[in-house]
C-alpha cells in the first residue's frame, strides 16, 4: 500500500533532520520539518542571520566541515518547496500522536502518523563554585556567539572542560584574535596522549585534533591537562578562575569562562512519546532506545536520528537521518529510491569507535563529582547548593532523581534540569554509593521549555 499521504513530522533541522527530510522529499513525501531556530543547520552548522554585513564564508564559519555544511544548505534549498518547513517554532508538548508547537506567540497542534526526532545535543555541565556568575558560558555558547553573531564572550576567555568541541572552540577564538588565556582540562595528559595515539587509525580526525592543539600551543595558549576548575572568581562578574592540580592552586585572570564536559543528548521530547529508555554506561546517560536503523522501542510511529539519540557527531547524524527516513518509509510501504544502508552504517560504526577513543582520551578523575563542594550551587535556576541534594539523599525514598527533585527542588526550575540534571545524578549516586543508572533520570515534563500562558491560550484556528 502506498501511503505517501502519511503525515510525517521531523523535529530538528540539524544534519540528522535535514537528511531525513531530503530522503523523504526525494520519495515524493512532503514531511513537516519543525525547528526552533530561524535558519537550518542545527547548532553545529548554525548560520548567521540573513542580514547584509554577515559576510563570512562557509570555510570561515565551519572550518574543516565547510564542505559538509555547504552540501546540507544546498540540499535544503533543493527540497525547500517540497516540504512544510516551519522555522522559529518550538515543540513544547507531545500528546498521543500530535505535538503542540509555539510560534509567534501562538500555539498549534500538529498531528503525525510518523515522527522522526532529531533534537540534537548540548553541553554537559559540571558545577564549580562561582559558575553562576555572569560571564560564565557553555562552550557551545562561546562558539554560537562567534559563529552566529561574530562576537566572543569576552576579551580574556578561559576554556574549561573536555572534548574535541572545546578545543575547536578555543582554536576558533584564537583565530578570531581572542586567544584563550588558558585551556583547562581535568583529564590526565597521559591518558589523553595514549588514547590520542589510537586515533592514528583515523588520520583525518587525528590531524585535525593535532592541528587545533598545535595551533593553540604556537599561539602561546597554556593547555593545562590534569587541572580542575577550583573556583570562578568575582563578585558581580567573572574576574578570574583558580585551577587546582594535586592540591596546588593557581589563579588565572580572565573576564569570561567557557565550560563544557562533552555533550549530552536532548531527550525531553523522546520522553514524552513514552518510548523506552536505556542507560548507556559509556555516555553515562539514559537514552531513548532504538534499533540500528532508528526505530524507537515501544512505539511503532517514532524514529530517532542524530545526537538526540546518543552523541555520535555531525557526520553520523546525517547517516542516522537517512537511516531513520529509510526505516520509516519501509515500515509505511512508501516506495523510495534504492538505498543501501551499508555506507551509513559504516559511518556510524566509525563514529562510535571515534567517540570511544575520545571518551578514553578525556577521562574524568574518579572523585570528580564527589569533589563538588556542598556550597557549590548545583541548580542555577532554583539556586540549590549541592549540599542540599546530599542532605536529602536517601531520606524518605530519595534514592531516585525525581524524588530527590521534589525534596530539593533540583531540576525543578525553568531549564527543566538540562543544566544540572546530569551532575545531580552523578552527585546523588556518589553520595548513595550506588551506580549512576540506579538513581534514574529526571522525567521530561510538558512544557519541555517555558512558554507564556498567553501562548498556550492562543490557539491557532
Amino acid at each position, binding site marked *: 500500500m502506498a501511503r505517501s499521504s502519511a503525515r510525517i513530522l521531523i523535529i530538528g533541522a540539524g544534519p540528522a533532520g535535514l537528511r531525513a527530510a531530503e530522503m523523504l522529499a526525494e520519495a515524493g513525501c512532503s514531511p513537516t520539518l519543525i525547528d*526552533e*531556530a*530561524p535558519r537550518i543547520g542545527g*547548532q553545529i552548522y548554525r548560520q*548567521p*542571520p540573513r*542580514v*547584509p*554585513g*554577515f*559576510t*563570512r564564508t562557509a570555510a*570561515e564559519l565551519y572550518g574543516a566541515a565547510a564542505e559538509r555544511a555547504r552540501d546540507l544548505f544546498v540540499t535544503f534549498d533543493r527540497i525547500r518547496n517540497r516540504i512544510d518547513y516551519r522555522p522559529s517554532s*518550538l515543540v513544547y508538548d507531545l500528546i498521543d500522536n500530535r505535538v503542540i508547537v509555539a510560534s509567534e*506567540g501562538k500555539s498549534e497542534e500538529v498531528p503525525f502518523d510518523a515522527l522522526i526526532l532529531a533534537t540534537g545535543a*548540548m*553541553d554537559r555541565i559540571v558545577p564549580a563554585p562561582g559558575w*553562576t556568575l*555572569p*560571564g*560564565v*558560558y*557553555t562552550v*557551545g*555558547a562561546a562558539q*554560537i*556567539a*562567534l559563529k*552566529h*553573531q*561574530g*562576537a*566572543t*564572550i*569576552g*576579551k580574556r576567555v578561559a576554556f574549561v572542560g573536555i572534548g574535541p568541541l572545546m578545543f575547536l572552540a578555543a582554536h576558533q577564538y584564537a583565530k*578570531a*584574535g*581572542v586567544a584563550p588565556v588558558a585551556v583547562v582540562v581535568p583529564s590526565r595528559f597521559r591518558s589523553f596522549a595514549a588514547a590520542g595515539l589510537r586515533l592514528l587509525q583515523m588520520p583525518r580526525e587525528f590531524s585535525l585534533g593535532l592541528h587545533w592543539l598545535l595551533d593553540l600551543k604556537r599561539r602561546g595558549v597554556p593547555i593545562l591537562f590534569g587541572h580542575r576548575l577550583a573556583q570562578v572568581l568575582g563578585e*558581580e*562578574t567573572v574576574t578570574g578562575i583558580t585551577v587546582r592540580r594535586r592540591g596546588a592552586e593557581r589563579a588565572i585572570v580572565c*573576564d*569570561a569562562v567557557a565550560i563544557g564536559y562533552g555533550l549530552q543528548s*536532548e531527550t525531553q521530547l523522546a520522553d514524552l512519546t513514552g518510548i523506552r529508555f536505556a542507560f548507556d554506561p559509556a555516555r553515562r546517560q539514559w537514552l531513548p532506545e532504538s534499533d540500528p536503523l532508528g526505530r524507537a522501542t515501544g512505539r511503532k510511529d517514532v524514529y530517532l536520528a542524530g545526537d538526540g539519540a546518543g552523541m555520535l557527531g555531525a557526520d553520523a547524524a546525517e547517516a542516522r537521518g537517512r537511516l531513520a527516513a529509510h526505516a520509516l518509509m519501509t515500515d509505511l510501504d512508501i516506495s523510495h529510491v534504492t538505498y543501501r544502508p551499508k555506507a551509513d552504517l559504516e559511518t556510524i560504526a566509525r563514529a562510535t569507535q571515534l567517540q570511544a577513543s575520545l571518551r578514553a582520551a578525556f577521562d574524568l578523575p574518579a572523585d570528580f563529582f564527589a569533589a563538588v563542594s556542598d556550597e557549590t550551587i548545583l541548580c*542555577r*535556576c532554583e*539556586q540549590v547548593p549541592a549540599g542540599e541534594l546530599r542532605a536529602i539523599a536517601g531520606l524518605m525514598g530519595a534514592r531516585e532523581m525525581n524524588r530527590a527533585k521534589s525534596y530539593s527542588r533540583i531540576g525543578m*526550575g*525553568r*531549564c527543566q534540569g*538540562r*543544566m544540572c540534571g546530569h551532575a545531580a545524578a552523578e552527585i546523588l549516586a556518589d553520595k548513595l554509593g550506588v551506580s549512576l543508572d540506579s538513581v534514574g533520570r529526571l522525567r521530561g515534563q510538558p512544557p519541555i*521549555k*517555558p512558554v*507564556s500562558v*498567553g501562548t498556550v491560550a492562543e490557539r491557532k484556528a
Partner: protein
Amino acid sequence: MSEARLQRVKDQDRRLIEIIVDGWAMSAMEGDTVLVAILAQRQLLRDAPGEPVGAGFCLMGACQDCWVWQEDGRRIRACSTYAEPGMRIRTTWPDHLLAS
C-alpha cells in the same frame, strides 16, 4: 560596570539600528540578538528583584538564563530574539508588573 561584556570581532560592517533599553536609546547592529546588542555595551542582561542576575549561559534556548522583558510585559529569551529597530526592552521587571 558599563564596560562591554561581549567583543565584536567579525561581521561588524552592518547597518546600525536603535533599540530602547530601560528607557535609554542604545545602538545595535542589524542581525544582533537582543543578548548581543545589550552585552556588546553592558555587563548584565538582567538585574531584577527576585531573579538571579544574568548575562545568559547557553545561548541556544535551553538554560532560560537570558530572560528580559518587553515594555508591554512580555518575557523574551534574549539569545534567540533578534533586536528590531525601536524595540523597547527592560532588563528589570516592567513597572506595571512591579507595582503589586
